[in-house]
């Protein structure tokens, strides 16, 4: 058994808001008494951007990784040089969550090319010839829910062979008519994405109806910008040949960590879109795209 450090924040859900004070304990368990040269606890928030090899060359992607932007940083020494007795020792700490000057606080987000991450790092310095013991723990930052008056505007849509983009219907597309409503394209991130869809009629049976949540990440830098669209999750709402004429609910919960309120800054943007996809028996599919704005309310 070796020395073990655990960082435990007080809130069970580990969610903190700007200007909050993060309080918790550092728990050190050790099989025997150890000496150390001080324990430091640092709090850091960084935005790390990565260029997609698709947009810039593979080498550039490798080398030109955009430098991470530090949003906040704080360091406290929670203990001077001391000895830690055998067993479990708890050291309480408090760190204020404040941004560095000229920086904006963003919500935690785990994307493909953009990551916004907040961590607590505890370092136990052990002097010459001995490796320091480091423990990192992530905590989550969210915006304080604001009472915004979001105007809920339902969006209706109809998909027919005629409404399809790209080319004229030469009569080869079998007839179908799919209608639906999205309750709002401005969505509260903590509430589900809702609406409904009805297969009015379809000449060929449907195989599946799916909701695809995608993120649109844009990294801007001196050389230009790169925009990447990747799937976050795909939720099936209709399975098999569903009954026509009956409204099927559209319902999707936004996954935590992988979504955040839509974000637009000078050098990066995070946006989301939902595709409503209807797949027919012959694996042909039609889809309708809805850019959505996520907010924290």
């Amino acid at each position: 058994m070796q020395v073990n450090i655990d960082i435990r924040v007080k809130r069970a859900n580990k969610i903190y808001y700007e200007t909050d004070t993060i309080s918790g304990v550092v728990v050190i368990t050790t099989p025997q008494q150890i000496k150390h040269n001080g324990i430091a606890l640092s709090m850091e928030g960084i935005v790390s951007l990565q260029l997609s090899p698709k947009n810039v060359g593979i080498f550039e992607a490798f080398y030109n990784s955009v430098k991470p932007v530090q949003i906040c940083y704080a360091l406290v020494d929670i203990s001077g040089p001391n000895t830690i007795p055998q067993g479990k020792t708890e050291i309480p700490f408090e760190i204020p969550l404040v941004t560095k000057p000229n920086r904006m606080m963003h919500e935690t987000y785990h994307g493909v090319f953009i990551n916004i991450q907040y961590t607590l790092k505890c370092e136990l310095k052990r002097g010459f010839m001995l490796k320091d013991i480091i423990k990192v723990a992530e905590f989550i930052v969210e915006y304080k829910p604001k009472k915004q008056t979001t105007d809920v505007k339902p969006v209706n849509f109809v998909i027919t062979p005629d409404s399809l983009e790209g080319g004229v219907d030469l009569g080869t597309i079998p007839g179908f008519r799919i209608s639906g409503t999205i309750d709002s394209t401005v969505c509260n991130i903590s509430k589900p994405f809702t609406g409904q869809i009805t297969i009015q009629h379809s000449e060929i049976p449907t195989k599946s109806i799916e909701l695809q949540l995608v993120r649109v990440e844009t990294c801007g830098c001196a050389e230009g910008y790169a925009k990447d669209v990747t799937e976050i999750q795909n939720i099936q709402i209709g399975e098999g040949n569903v009954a026509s004429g009956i409204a099927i609910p559209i319902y999707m919960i936004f996954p935590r960590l992988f979504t955040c309120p839509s974000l637009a800054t000078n050098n990066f943007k995070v946006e989301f879109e939902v595709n409503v996809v209807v797949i027919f028996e012959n694996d042909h599919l039609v889809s309708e795209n809805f850019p959505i704005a996520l907010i924290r309310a």
Partner: protein
Amino acid sequence: MSTHRWEWHTQIPKIKVPIVRPKSTLVSEHPLKASTTTSFPGKGLTKVVDRVTKTPTSVQDPLMSALDGVDPLSALAAQTDWDEYDTKKKVKEMRQKSDPWNDQKQVILSKYTTTKKLSMATGIIAGLERSSVAISKESRDSNKEQPTTIRHRLEQLDEEFEHVGPKEVAFYSQQEFIDNVKELCNELTQAWHQDFRVKALKIAIQCSKLLVDTAVVQFYPSKFVLTTDVLDEFGHLVYERLWSKSDTRKPHELIVSESAKETCRNWFYKIASIRELIPRLYVEAAVLKSYNFLDDCEFSSALRRLVSMVRGIGDPLVAVFTRCYLVRIAMSVDNPDKLIVKENFSDFLKTYGQILSNGVLVELNKNKVDIPTYLQSYVPAVEWMLVNLIKDSNDKTKDEIVEACCCLPNKGLLLNCILKTFDEDYISRKSLYFIKQIDSCSNEHFPVHMLLSLLGKNLKDKSIANPKEVLEQGLIIISQITEPSDYLSCIIAWNSFIIPQSNVAGLNSLLEDVIAHVSVGDKKTFYGPLQDIILSIVTNISNIDVLFTMDKFLPLLDLFGNDEVRAQTARKTLDVLGANHEQYSTTDPVTINSLIFLAKILHDSVNVLTVEDERRQIGSLISHIIRKIDFGLDFEKQLSFYVDARATFTNLDSVTSTLVHCVNRLAMETSKKVKGTHTKKTSSFVHACAAYSFITIPSIRSDTSKLQLYLATTQVALTNQCLGQADACIKAAITLIADLPLYYEMDGVPKSNEPFIQEFVKEVMSTLLVLPDCPEEGILYVTRILVNVLQKYSDDNNLGLITGLYLHALDLLAAYAQPDYAYHVKGVDSNDVLYGSDPQVISEINKMCSVLLDQTLGNLQKLKEKEEIKKQSSLCFELFMRLIHHADLDAQGMSALAVQLWKLSTRKGCIDKKLLNNTIQYVKTKSCRYPPNSALPVLALQLEGTLQDLQ
């Protein structure tokens, strides 16, 4: 002893002692029979009750009552136990909530089975192995960077969802499939308890994925049961864990800790990200109860959402079972939201058309499943929905439901479930409406006969406003069914309604209809149902006469070509008739003919292979039926019926003996009618009766019953002054004794006839006393024959028996010597009147007695040689008593013999002292009536002397 021949002199009373005879009264019942049957069980029962009630009072310990209250320490201990128990109970209650479903489960599992191969993704189990390794590895180094772990885990979850797709599918037999699912369930619990919760979730997801596949439609309901069991287990585990995380000390207010809430939310986030619709729905439903940890109203709204999400399931079978599961979840909480159940059902009705949509039909065709089978698979789910829908609802809601269902095409399935789940009162009230509905869907896919038989079952024992109309309409539809087995199932279901409601003509035409339907095709398969129909008619009919006036009843029975089944049916019919109509007796010739016809079928089924018990049962059944037939005062007809019956039932002893008894009874009835004095006509009738018995008895196989019947007939013949017949019968009986084996075998155990012979011969002797001698034969020739038979019968093994009987013969002869016999038969002059104590007769009697005495003494000697001392002394004593009673002791040698016998019997000390004392007292008392110098007082003195020696 034997060298000297002893002369017997029967004592003839010199002083006429008036015999006081108890007054005889005519009784209809045997005086002993009634009292024993009623008193015995009563006594036994009260005794038991007494014991039970007394014991508790006796065990009251005075020390216990002093300390009345419970001592505080154990009370405290009990309290803490209770607290723990309370929380545990709560968890347990959650489980038991779905009790009605448990019953349903068993029904489904036994009903929906298949021999086809079932598909199951092999990835499930293989994948599990891999992931468990991955997880354990991961948990080992979880103390490394946590952020990456979470991320890793989620990614892996994603990957896993994608991974175990329909990649590899193996096919299993039903049992293998069941075992696999059970294995999964075990693995799930195991994983859970080892803290691999994500793995447990994965297993739950994999299980619910099984429900997507409907290829083997027949098995789907069972599959549903199996997999939802796993899901229930999972939901329960989640709930329990959250429960343990929250504060449960106060049972009524749930204080949920922040961490419990967070865990709960985590679960729902995880589940919400399941890609496929059906697993997501099922798994969320399984853990839905855990929403209670988040918010009170969350459960209802989530359930409502799930209900509407089912609309997205295209396969109607999958959808309907998902709805069924949601209903179960909805009903599993304390205050179920009925509205959700209702919405769920109306959604189901909206998509009802899907059930037989073109796509489905094509699929069915491909899998070679016929539509009725396919529709059957829906039944459990629809039923469950309906059961919960109509729980505590009034008629108006039911009306609404019924109407909503009945306006849909292909409503057969719905009707079926309605008829099955709604209460009988409601259905019988609206039976006419239902008949109309059934009629209107007769051209659709759902088998009409099932609906009709369900309706019939509901109508059972119900009184409705317009039975005639319902019956008429119902029968019209039923008779349109062409498939015989379907038709018969309907008739059986309706039976109990039809029979009370319809008249004979109606029933008859129904039977005709049945015969017409069954006459096509292989009859063998309908034997069971046909039998049921016959029996239910027989059971429900109030009057047997009416039953047989239907000219189609026996033809229906004739449909059973197979003798065995026919006999079985006949037997059951007669059984029912015998049991249901205890007081019934019939004179109707049609009924009699029919009953005899049935009995004949039964009788003819008896053959060499029939086991003894069976034979006995059949015999008693036929006897029972024969006794039921009663022509009242028409004795002649009754007798001729018995003659016919004898000709019909020749195989069964018990029936023949019943017939003899019946005829004897008939003779006695006649005698009762004429009050003992026969007219010419009745006299010839009773003669005929006696003759009937006399010639019937020899056909019986059992010797003992032959003997008994002969004797009974003798007695009856005597009572009816048929002296010739009586004589013949008793002679036949006596000669038969000689043929009776001393031992017979019963169930492999040898049994002795000795007690029977003893009793029987005694009874014969008492009958002989009143039987007058035939003038052509010698004096007491019948007795002589009897004694000769006994002598022939005797051998070394039955010395005791025969000697005892000799002694009884002495009794009889002594009785013969009396001037006035102890009893008489009215209208018959016994020997006392015939001979009037003629000296010649007396000397004849003395001669016979001497012979008997000689034989007896010889036997006693033999007994001594065989060293059966005890028997010898008791017989000696008996003989001594005979001498005292019957012999004239003043005659030469008699008293000397008496003394010798006395000595012989007392020598070994085998006779009870008290008895000896009493005997001496008796002899002394008796001797007072004799002059002091006669033999008896002298004997008394001698005896006293010996007694002193003994002491």
